[in-house]
């Protein structure tokens, strides 16, 4: 039997308030295993405000600062400035925000944090909608997905617009490190956390975070769905260091996206034509990633 490489330490405790099968809960657990106890988390209004449990309890074994939903980028800059001014050693400052708090209302502060080169990790845990308020569409909701504000019916087929490419926006700021992470691949996840910790400057994680009630799938299937997301090309795993992109999981031929879509109630209404369109977009994006990786490797980037 292979030896487990994931750190044994647990900084997220039982008694948290996450739903069964919660992707964001898995994301936090794995993240803190890699970051360790001297992490200072800044968390805006999001599912994790609630998951961490109300005052006077906490489900996290680290220092946590709550912040306004749009302010996470600024908050990590403030924490880093104070840590430096007060000569606090070995602290890792981390913003942990949802996709709405990042792609929509928090985009300005994130851009500011990246541009001023704050030495901190910004995490967007992406459950692809405003889940804490009951599944409203965000800029990160994928095209065609049902949400309560993109209902299906009367000619409307879920969210009409494509998902905002937050990683492209982040990469335009030339961060010190950026990566996509998926709790369904814990070794890859942990390796990226360790890699990020070895680098100074603004770092960005886009974490895939399935939401059973919001996406409408069986909470026992979170890990399997996450694996399918990556292996179908919906959520490719890669990292970008010094502007060079490297794909960290390749399995030969991509699995059909139809399998991924069919596993979730939010895509139930999609017909063969819509599925074929999504398939061709995912394929094109995967090919683009492969080209970028090849170009970066050969130095022609």
């Amino acid at each position, binding site marked *: 039997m292979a030896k487990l490489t994931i750190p044994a330490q647990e900084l997220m405790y039982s008694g948290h308030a996450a739903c069964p099968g919660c992707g964001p809960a898995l994301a936090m657990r794995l993240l803190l295993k890699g970051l360790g106890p001297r992490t200072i988390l800044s968390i805006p209004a999001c599912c994790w405000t609630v998951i961490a449990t109300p005052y006077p309890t906490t489900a996290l074994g680290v220092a946590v*600062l709550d912040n306004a939903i749009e302010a996470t980028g600024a908050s990590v*800059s403030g924490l880093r*400035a104070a840590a430096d*001014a007060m000569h*606090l050693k070995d602290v890792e400052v981390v913003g942990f925000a949802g996709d709405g708090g990042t792609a929509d209302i928090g985009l*300005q*502060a994130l851009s500011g944090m990246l541009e*001023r080169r704050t030495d901190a990790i910004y995490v967007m845990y992406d459950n692809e909608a405003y889940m804490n308020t009951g599944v409203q569409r965000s800029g990160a909701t994928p095209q065609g997905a049902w949400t309560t504000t993109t209902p299906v019916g009367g000619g409307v087929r879920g969210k009409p617009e494509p998902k905002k490419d937050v990683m492209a926006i982040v990469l335009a700021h030339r961060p010190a490190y950026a990566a996509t992470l998926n709790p369904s691949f814990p070794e890859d996840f942990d390796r990226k956390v360790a890699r990020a910790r070895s680098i100074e400057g603004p770092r960005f994680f886009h974490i895939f975070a399935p939401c059973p009630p919001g996406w409408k799938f069986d909470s026992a299937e979170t890990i399997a769905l996450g694996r399918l997301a990556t292996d179908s090309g919906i959520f490719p795993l890669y990292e970008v260091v010094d502007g060079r992109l490297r794909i960290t999981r390749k399995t030969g031929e991509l699995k059909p996206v139809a399998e991924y879509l069919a596993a979730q109630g939010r895509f139930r209404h999609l017909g063969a034509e819509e599925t074929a369109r999504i398939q061709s977009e995912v394929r094109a994006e995967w090919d683009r990633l492969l080209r970028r990786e090849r170009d970066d490797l050969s130095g022609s980037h």
Partner: protein
Amino acid sequence: MTVKVLSGNYAQSYAALLARAQVISAYPITPQTSIVEKIAEFVASGELDAQYVKVESEHSALQVCLSAAALGARTYTATSSQGLLLMHELLHWASGMRAPIVMGVVNRAVAPPWNIGADHADTMSQRDTGWVQFYAESNQEVLDTVLEAYRLAEHRDIRLPVMVTEDAFYLSHTVEPVDVPDPATVDAFLPRREPHAVLAPGRATRLGSFTGPDHYVDFRHDVGAAMDRVREVLPRVEQEYLALVGRELGGSLPTYRTEGADVVLVTMGTTTTTARGVVDDLRAEGRKVGLAKLRVFRPFPEDELRRLVADVARIGVVDRSFTFGRMGPAATEVSAALYTAANRPELTSFLAGIGGRDVTPHEVRRMFETLLSGEAPTTHWEDIEEEVKVDG
């Protein structure tokens, strides 16, 4: 002590320097900008050992200070007008988190129409955010009050944010000789901030959190109680400042020639200086008039006010902004405070100096004469030529 010729803005900058602020964050806005430009020079030259975080908005500027203060750093920011309005959400966060942030505010009109003149609508709109509010009359008072503000903000019985305001241009861009205390004197008055380790790296701690109504009400009550304690702590801090620096700061509601006054005018900020001269003129003519400067707006000095009006027949309150559908905001506060006074004088709300208009001695004299006439209206707009009629 060194005398420097400083604008109100530079008085803010020198105060932040003397206070040894550790984290500074700001966004440019007229007429605040020269405050943070000067601080940038202090940091660049090494005079001030601080982290200066240049941000992309005022909202982020205040968040940087909030997060830095949560970790225990002494912070400073400054803004004005629209910038303060953008910060509004986080002003509530600052008091709720008991963050001892000190902020300079240059009082400026809010849009539309665009106007960069002196006007108190920006800070009056922040009345209920849980910030202590000081309104300065002179550049000297700006510098002294910012230093005092840190002592108050960080006091273990208070732990609330404090804003120190100054009128746009009349103070922000007008220079005066200012006594700048020696760093060692200020260090004695204002030692380094005591660590306030709610948010402690390496420990399971949380600041902000969420609660149901069971605990929420306690948090709100505690902010109010801390605000009330400013009334007790302020005189003690000012006594210490007097002993160490040798200057009186004046308390919440300093008065001028109110002995035996039939009529008292309440002013804020720079209007006070003009009114003081008018009081002298009228007193020389044998008119029984006096002046009170509303220096602290939150917590509101209601006891001082009730004592002040014990033998006063009429009181006028000069506001540089307007609460639509009511009267001047300071006038509403004075009016409310007088409800329980043994002697309740008649009250007039004067709206003057809006959007940076000059409040001239002539105009202040007219206010006193209106009050002395015995036929003062409830609300009076100074120098409004005609009312705009709306058809229908």
